[in-house]
């Protein structure tokens, strides 16, 4: 280090082209097969093309060496989507007996810029699989980090579900879901994960055992934001396989009534009430009063039965799905009112 100069970050160091590196002097790069080597004005592309030309050389020669390993790292830095490079890297990791904990760190660095990439996640899984239960905390931490940037990240959730099932760590997962829902009650991925935990965690008594507490939790969420599709779906899901329990649970019908009476964001309250009626629920006068109090203009007063009235209202307040609500009306059981 020259005296007086500041420390240079790794990324800011002048990158040396492979053709200028003595340790690569013995290798002839292999250009892309489907065209002549292009003369490109953009430097970045030239560097990238060169890395790939050298990669092709070691790949075709099946050279499994430390320099090949670092070359795959360079290639991945340029393009984390190239699955052939990742494959070759895995072969090298195996042969060269690389410390897989370090590999996890490498993946994390790459993921920082490329998280929406199937290859990275698949590679991470292969490495974590090899490490086994040792990798448990690392995987939960890693996915948590990614989710802290994008709480709906599909790959991260998929990986997290795999990690819980393969490596464990279920104990804190329900709390983690609650944390995320506190940040964004509309996060459908977090609701899905909640369902995943209560139905599959070996530490929890199963759906039926969790139903009571989960219903309370969900009703609170619905009260706070009745326009939240996820919370209503979750409530329904808590009674999976037991529709009668769902229909007969007074908490379900009363939350519908409560939201209707508030006259605000009542679309899902109405559709849930409709579903209840279609499964045999018989609403009392309070429901009728609440619906009339909505004072929906131009409502066809010929609709004497409450279910038809609900469908008519939904046709009006959810016009983009008018055909769906018309169909629902056509399928109503003919209940005498």
């Amino acid at each position, binding site marked *: 280090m020259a005296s007086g100069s500041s420390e240079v970050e790794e990324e800011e160091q002048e990158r040396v082209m492979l053709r200028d590196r003595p340790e690569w002097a013995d290798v002839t790069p292999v250009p892309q*097969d489907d065209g002549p080597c292009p003369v490109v004005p953009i430097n970045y592309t030239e560097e990238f093309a060169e890395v790939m030309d050298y990669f092709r050389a070691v790949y075709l020669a099946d050279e499994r060496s430390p320099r090949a390993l670092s070359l795959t790292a360079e290639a991945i830095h340029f393009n984390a989507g190239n699955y052939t490079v990742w494959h070759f890297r895995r072969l090298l990791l195996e042969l060269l007996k690389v410390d897989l904990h370090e590999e996890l760190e490498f993946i994390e660095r790459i993921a920082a810029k490329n998280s929406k990439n199937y290859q990275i996640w698949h590679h991470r899984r292969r490495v974590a699989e090899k490490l086994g239960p040792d990798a448990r905390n690392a995987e939960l931490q890693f996915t948590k980090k990614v989710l802290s940037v994008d709480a709906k990240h599909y790959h991260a*959730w998929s990986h997290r579900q795999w990690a819980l099932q393969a490596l464990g760590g279920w104990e804190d997962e329900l709390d983690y879901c609650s944390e995320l829902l506190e940040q964004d009650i509309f996060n459908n991925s977090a609701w899905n994960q909640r369902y995943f935990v209560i139905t599959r965690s070996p530490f929890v008594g199963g759906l039926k055992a969790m139903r009571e507490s989960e219903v309370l939790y969900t009703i609170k969420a619905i009260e706070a934001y009745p326009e939240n599709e996820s919370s209503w779906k979750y409530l329904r899901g808590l009674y999976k396989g037991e529709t009668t329990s769902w229909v007969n649970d007074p908490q379900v019908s009363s939350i519908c009534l409560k939201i209707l009476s508030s006259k605000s964001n009542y679309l899902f309250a109405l559709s849930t009430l409709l579903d209840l009626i279609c499964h045999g629920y018989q609403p009392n006068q309070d429901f009728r009063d609440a619906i009339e109090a909505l004072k929906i203009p131009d409502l066809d007063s010929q609709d004497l039965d409450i279910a038809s009235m609900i469908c008519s209202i939904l046709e009006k307040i959810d016009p983009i799905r008018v055909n*769906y609500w018309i169909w629902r009306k056509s399928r109503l059981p003919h209940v005498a009112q």
Partner: protein
Amino acid sequence: MVTVCNVSFMAMFTFKMGELVTDKHVKYILSVEKRKDDFESVVMEHLRMNGAYWGLTALDLMGKLDVVDVNEVVSWVMSCQHDSGGFGGNVGHDPHILYTLSAVQVLALFDKMDLIDADKVTNYIVGLQNEDGSFSGDMWGEVDTRFSYIAICCLSIIHRLDKINVEKAVKYIISCKNMDGGFGCTPGGESHAGQIFCCVGALALTGSLDLVNKDLLGWWLCERQVKSGGLNGRPEKLPDVCYSWWVLSSLIMIDRVHWISREKLIKFILDCQDKEKGGISDRPDDAVDVFHTYFGVAGLSLLEYPGLKPIDPAYALPVDVVNRIFFKK
């Protein structure tokens, strides 16, 4: 009065809904196919087989497949095949089920099915089915319902569907069904329109749609339509043109497409066009790419936008190509 009566249906339609600038999109797709030097194409070179399928199918839907050099494309496709029977994303790339399907689809577009060694491709795919009925993407073992669809679609096209364990394949897909009626990538995975397309498509191609709760799923799917008319892939996410395909084709396969607003979706897709340079983007005013151009055109075809060839929702190939596969002697 006379002038008004003479206005053609086409003119009325485009006046009301906006115009699909077909020629610009054709030019755009061809320019992407030719480009090999710029950063975007170098970064995408490993999935060129997918890109070829997107670009060529879009061209065919617009009736312009003949502007492409068949022999050049076909010989390139065949050069991507490995001894295992699988195809790589480009020359010098490892085989993967993703590119195997795209390769077979591209050959089908050009009516070059006779070039496919069906037994070889079948062997490759059969080897990727796991004990639980799921499919891996390649020898490295990634499992995802996308691969179930790909395996089933590919084998169906080459008339070898009976070579896999269909019952187990279907059982695995159903194990990925969620309480909201949708499907995820693996059991317990969040319902996602892309995964739903794959699962519903696979069930359609194996004659197993009776296992889908069509009313429940249909509602989940039509709930994807947001105020702007576009479709998202999950609750509370932004609309994206590619969902015009995945949500729409799923709705068609389960006979519930009338539950969305056709006009509003058409308008959304048309608004995603770059009317000067051609191409379609994920949402209005974003950068275009071949992927979204294909899905926008395919979505419009499903919506019966005039001037486009009809597309099969399960095979994701033009209907005349599918007919040729199954009815040609």
